[in-house]
């Protein structure tokens, strides 16, 4: 149980907080030997969290021939990298990776461990949290460190795990006061990538991997990745459609507009669920977070989960039939009208201008 240092002299025998446990760790995900963007984004956030609690930021790098990745983490604020290399660790597999992280967390007891909310992160983080009995909050949209008084007790360096909750009308701050290690997953693009002007000094600590038969219970037979992945994050203009478009046919107007003005197509979760657009183009808390120069939201009501993924766009245009739709509250330009009429008119006006 964590105690505030101030409670050192309390008669109830409270202990001083473990001085070891002001470390922030980020699990660095790699696929085919390439680091995932989200891991570096998390390092940048982790750097700030570590500073806020006078702690150290460590990157956890697991793989085969991934020393270069470990070195790269110092550009994003890592003070030390824990590097675990072995030929059988080349590709992510649940059992060896979770076993390695379990052992590290149990031995060193970091205060915070962050994972990307990717397929890999969401596969490994719960196993580690389960094994180490740590708290884990999925899909956080913000993270902060603060001293907190909770149920009359003082706690230091609690991780405020902030995420929209249930229904989207509220933002909940989750804390895990009574555990040593606090864990969270965060989607790609949520945290900003801000490399240090001067990288930290490289300090790599190699951790030995001890193979165990349990690690080989699952074997990868083959793997396929598409190289031309949609990159919404890099698009300067995004045209997104929502469930308000009603049909896949109407959604084609979104595509037409995007093609006309040179934007990428995106959708809300409802649009993805309805099959209007593929999941890799979902913007929002459980999709991608974007900050384009222009975001056009069409037939999107603007639930908090969606806004979490696009509200920092430079300019937002909202097109919706419902003047009360919450999307208008964050839009710079609001157009109340039916998309099937507004979009063709917009396209025509745009083409006319370019003539």
């Amino acid at each position, binding site marked *: 149980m964590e105690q505030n240092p101030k409670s050192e002299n309390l008669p109830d025998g409270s202990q001083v907080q473990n001085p070891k446990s002001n470390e922030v760790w980020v699990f660095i995900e790699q*696929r085919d030997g390439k680091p995932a963007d989200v891991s570096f984004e998390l390092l940048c956030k982790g750097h700030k969290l570590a500073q806020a609690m006078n702690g150290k930021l460590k990157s956890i790098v697991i793989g085969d021939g991934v020393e270069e990745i470990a070195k790269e983490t110092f550009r994003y604020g890592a003070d030390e990298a824990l590097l675990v290399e072995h030929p059988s660790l080349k590709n992510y597999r*649940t059992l060896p990776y*979770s076993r390695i992280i379990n052992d590290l967390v149990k031995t060193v007891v970091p205060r915070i461990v962050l994972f990307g909310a*990717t*397929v*890999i992160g*969401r*596969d490994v*983080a*719960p*196993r580690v949290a*389960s*094994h180490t*009995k*740590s*708290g884990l909050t*999925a*899909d956080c949209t913000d993270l902060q460190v603060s001293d*907190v008084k*909770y149920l009359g007790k003082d706690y230091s360096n609690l991780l*405020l795990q902030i995420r*929209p*909750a*249930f*229904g989207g*009308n*509220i933002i*909940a*701050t*989750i*804390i*895990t006061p009574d555990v040593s290690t606090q864990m969270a997953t965060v989607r790609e693009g949520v945290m900003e990538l801000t490399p240090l002007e001067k990288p930290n000094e490289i300090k790599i600590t190699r951790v030995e991997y001890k193979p165990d038969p*349990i690690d080989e*219970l*699952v074997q*990868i*037979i*083959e*793997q396929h*990745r*598409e190289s031309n992945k949609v990159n919404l994050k890099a698009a300067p*203009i995004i045209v997104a459609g929502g469930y308000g478009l009603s049909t896949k046919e109407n959604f084609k107007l979104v595509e037409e507009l995007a093609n006309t*003005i040179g934007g990428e197509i995106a959708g809300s979760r409802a649009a993805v669920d309805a099959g209007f657009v593929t999941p890799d183009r979902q913007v929002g808390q*459980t999709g991608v977070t974007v900050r384009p120069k*222009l975001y056009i939201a069409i037939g999107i009501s603007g639930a908090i989960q969606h806004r979490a993924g696009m509200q920092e766009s430079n300019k937002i245009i909202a097109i919706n039939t419902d003047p009360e739709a*919450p999307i*208008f*509250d*964050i839009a*710079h*330009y*609001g*157009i109340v009208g039916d998309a099937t009429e*507004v979009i063709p*008119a*917009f396209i*025509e006006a*745009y083409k*006319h*201008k370019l003539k």
Partner: protein
Amino acid sequence: MFNSIVMVKQVPDTANISGKVMKDDGTVNRTKLPAIFNHEDRVALELALQVKEKYGGKVTAVTMGPPRASDVLRECLYMGANETYLVSDRKFAGADTLATSYVLSEVIKKIGNYDFIFAGRQAIDGDTAQVGPQTAEKLGIPQITYTEEILNVEKNKIKIKRKIDGGYEIVESTLPVLITVLKDVVEPRPFSSKRVMAFKNARSVMDLEKLAEGNSLLYTDRLIHEYKEKNLLINTFTMDDLNLDIQRCGIAGSPTKVHKVESVVLKGGNQIKVEPTKGGLSGLIDQLMTDHIFG
């Protein structure tokens, strides 16, 4: 022959959520929402049933929740489950994913004799996708998450196609293994009308206790015996039926706490209203060109 345990969850229908159903502490007042069968869990059950039909064996459905969660277990019976377990106790209430996975892993150990544990990837009320992997870790067995297709089952092996970031992979696991499935993997079968007739009166021990309370001529023990004889008993585990550490259950066993809940305050105010007319849209496009966004 392969035996499967399917973890299912009754969830509030998030499509019908309004501010009225939130409690002050930010948790959802579930009693005010329609309760439905979590879709991905239904897909998981369908996969388990397909494995049973192809290779033989038994399908057991398990849910943890309030007494009314027996609704989803009846639906499991309608679809083809052989046996069901309701895990319910006030002491389990308020459980986060860690406490839930602890109780479920102990329940699964008690049921025993399984080759596969199936579950939906995640439930729509939390979207955490944590309970599956957390349960597998507690059982010390491998897991295959994000399953797209079961390719083959052999004596002590299963081959599965699963989603990975940017593509897919094919993996082979020894048994037993916990498998979580994506929502579009298979279409869950409709209820069989024959099975609905056969199992519509299936009841949990709690249902039967309630029945006995309201009628002095009925005794719970006898009812349980009767329903069991007729194959209509939804097996029921409470705290007392399981060898659990109470400190690891319910709120006590849940490290995550809701510290603060804020209503969303919208900025608003600065918005420029654009008329959906030719003139209005032209003006907007001019402005965006001035801002170097267009052109």
